[in-house]
């Protein structure tokens, strides 16, 4: 049974080393934000993120931020960069985890890969990424994923069955529905589902923490939660190695090079789905519900035909994407937006702003369910040469299942307060809570 060799773990930095690193990068963000740099202002967490994106676009298709990072909010360019093999998530020619904790940031100015996760979850090497894509394709790929629709919907309905008249959008609906559908599709035991639900908030900052330093306790809690998620998935996978069932983990174990089984990759695929996929799905569900409730006529369209849930998901992915900043590294000399960039340059795509580029989208600030079915509609929210693309089909499936069920069963939904978003969340802009009531 071939297994994936795991690279030697990097020495874990001490609290003081990690804390100082996170503090330093945060200091960079605040200092250059004070000098007016729009990208630094985004990272620092200024409220009006969309107008900062417009400021970036005003500076041309691509410009170099005061932080040294090249940034773009150009719609066409962002679409091109999502598909360019010369842009990847790792520094070219490096092995192992992408970490800069022990670098002297005052000298290197490196503000990518800010927070070490202790593993390469968000920065798979090309070979590993291709292996994972080949593994996921036949089971949870763009064409195969819809096969799990019934499973996903069944578990979503179970969450809706238990909703009280007043509840919280994220805590009571989005998170349990996403974790429930994930557990059902993968075939996790109930104990793992329960524990995953508790672990997810701590894993939340993973996507944000690539560009924005979390507070030290949050960084430590995240690393602990990630380790525990991996343990849960290892246990679930090892059960399925000996006792296969009709779930996705069993199906993944049945795929592999020459039909062999690779439990290591299956575990990684499951961890990705739970950490990256679930966070993106929870955020997208929450963003969609908030957008729909704020746009009554669109909400009415969905209520009239819950089968349009997929349209609502696609328009939400464009209008309020779950990963608003995509961090890339040039793998060689590359020409982007009229600039020639050397290898190993940091490039960040402002996905949310790019997806409101008036050059690509008519009336871009309008949230409309009719948009996705128009010819030529496309967005880059789930594109990219990275972890995001791998989990995209499952994220779509989960979000569509939840929105469809919500439209079918909660037509009287209304907000009963203001949404609260997570702090230090410039990448995901993660909703933490919104009190809701059903009539």
């Amino acid at each position, binding site marked *: 049974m071939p297994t994936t060799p795991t690279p030697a773990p990097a020495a874990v930095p001490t609290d*003081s080393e990690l*804390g*100082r690193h996170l*503090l330093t990068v945060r*200091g960079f963000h*605040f*200092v250059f934000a*004070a000098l007016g740099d729009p990208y630094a202002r985004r990272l620092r967490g200024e409220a009006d993120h969309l107008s900062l994106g417009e400021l970036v676009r005003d500076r041309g298709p691509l410009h170099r931020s005061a932080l040294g990072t090249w940034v773009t909010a150009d719609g066409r360019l962002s679409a091109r960069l999502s598909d360019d093999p010369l842009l990847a998530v790792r520094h070219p020619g490096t092995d192992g985890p992408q970490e800069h904790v022990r670098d002297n940031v005052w000298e290197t100015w490196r503000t990518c890969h800010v927070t070490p996760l202790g593993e390469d979850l968000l920065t798979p090497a090309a070979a590993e990424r291709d292996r994972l894509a080949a593994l996921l394709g036949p089971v949870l790929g763009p064409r195969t994923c819809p096969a799990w629709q019934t499973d996903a919907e069944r578990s979503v309905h179970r969450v809706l069955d238990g909703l009280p008249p007043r509840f919280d959008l994220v805590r009571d609906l989005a998170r349990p529905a996403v974790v429930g559908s994930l557990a059902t599709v993968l075939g996790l035991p109930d104990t793992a589902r329960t524990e995953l639900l508790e672990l997810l908030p701590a894993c939340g900052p993973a996507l944000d923490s690539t560009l924005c330093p979390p507070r030290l306790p949050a960084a430590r809690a995240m690393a602990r939660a990630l380790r525990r998620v991996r343990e849960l998935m290892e246990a679930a996978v090892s059960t399925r190695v000996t006792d296969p069932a009709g779930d996705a983990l069993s199906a993944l174990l049945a795929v592999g090079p020459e039909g062999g089984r690779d439990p290591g990759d299956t575990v990684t695929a499951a961890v990705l789905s739970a950490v990256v996929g679930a966070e993106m799905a929870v955020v997208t569900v929450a963003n969609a519900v908030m957008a729909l409730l704020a746009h009554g006529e669109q909400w009415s369209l969905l209520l009239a035909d819950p089968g349009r849930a997929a349209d609502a998901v696609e328009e939400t992915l464009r209008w309020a994407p779950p990963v608003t900043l995509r961090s890339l590294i040039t793998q060689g000399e590359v020409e982007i937006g009229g600039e020639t960039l050397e290898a190993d340059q940091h490039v960040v795509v402002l996905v949310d702003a790019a997806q409101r580029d008036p050059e690509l989208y008519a009336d871009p600030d309008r949230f409309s369910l009719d948009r996705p079915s128009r010819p030529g509609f496309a967005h880059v929210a789930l594109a990219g040469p990275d972890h995001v693309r791998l989990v995209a089909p499952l994220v779509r499936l989960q979000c569509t299942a939840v929105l469809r069920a919500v439209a079918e069963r909660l037509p009287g939904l209304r907000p009963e307060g203001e949404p609260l978003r997570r*702090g230090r969340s410039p990448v995901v802009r993660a909703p933490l809570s919104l009190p809701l009531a059903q009539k």
Partner: protein
Amino acid sequence: MKVLVTAFAMDAHFNGVVPLSWALRTAGHDVRVASQPALTDSITRAGLTAVPVGTDHQVQAVMGVMAPGVFALHRNPDYLENRPELLGAEFLEASASMLTAAFYAQINNDSMIDELVDFARWWRPDLVVWEPFTFAGAVAAQATGAAHARLLWGPDLFLRVHDRFRQALGEMPAEHRDDALEEWLTWTLERHGEAFRPEVISGHWTIDQMPPSVRLPTARPTVPVRFIPYNGPVPAVVPPWLRADPERPRVLLTQGITERSTGFTGLPRAGELLASIAELDAEVVATVKAEEREGLPPLPANVRVVDSLSLHAVLPTCAAVVHHGGAGTWATAALHGIPQLALAWQWDDVFRAGQLEKLGAGVFLPPHSEGASAGRVRDKLGQVLTEPSFRQGAARIRSEMLRTPAPSEVVPTLEELTGRHRSPGGRSPRG
């Protein structure tokens, strides 16, 4: 008792701890002064006992990158003029974050803190007196159960703003509370087996060297003490020309030692300023660095340019002083009752300069404004020299300062407070 005094390695911040250190020594206490190795010469030249700890900080290099952004944020008038109630949460979070990253955690580098804690665990001080940004002193005190006090060199703008920040944080949802200073001190204390306590930021009490009308209350125990000038690394020598009264009113033009060494200065170019001031019926004495002196235009006979001077030697002979607003210069002039023209633009300098004007003891000219041309400085200075009200205002501040107990007089209070705050019997060597 054993008193551990600490100030990060920067002369202007060290100078303020020297007179009280001596007061404690001459009262019979054992005093040691800890800092990074770069300050060792300054400490021993002050006749004090140095304890070099850790490696030298790199704050100068860091500020080379960060200073423009730090100054851009802190030009906020509500901050500079001590109106913390007007400061918003967004400003306060940005301020705490960048100052902790670029300044506090730099001047208190890990090796310096760790060796200071090690030294304190061995030497077991009863009292730690720390310069208000040298949080390493508070960490070492907490780790050893010593009493500890902040020794201010200026009005307590920092703690006032920090208190306002804590209040703003309390009004936020818990998920959004972000205090970089507390976060840094938390993991720093944990490294030494200690939990964060608010006194690490505020001290058990504060020793304040400002005159009452320039002091900022913080609702915490404060021991007022008279400011006594110590001129630091500049040798205190009285040159022959200073041993007689000047024939015309003497004006001193100076920029502080920190601005001289960092290059972050608010003063107009010295040559232009000197030429303009020299048009007054006055004798002008200017401290100008040797390398800058070459660039000066030919100056009239009533101008004397020197490399450096001991301020407390020259100021008593002056009718006015023009300066950058720094703490030591301001307080030395105030103690001698000399009217001041402060071209202040940063930090507490602005508040102090504003108070000066409010108290009728001088003029505040923000140097980056239109109104601070060389000609305007000359005209304002002319006013200060001719209108007696400035001298009277300055004399009022001087008498406030003279009424404040001298360092030697506060030693018994410090002894008493130490007894009250020190952990009985101290702590075991590992906390």
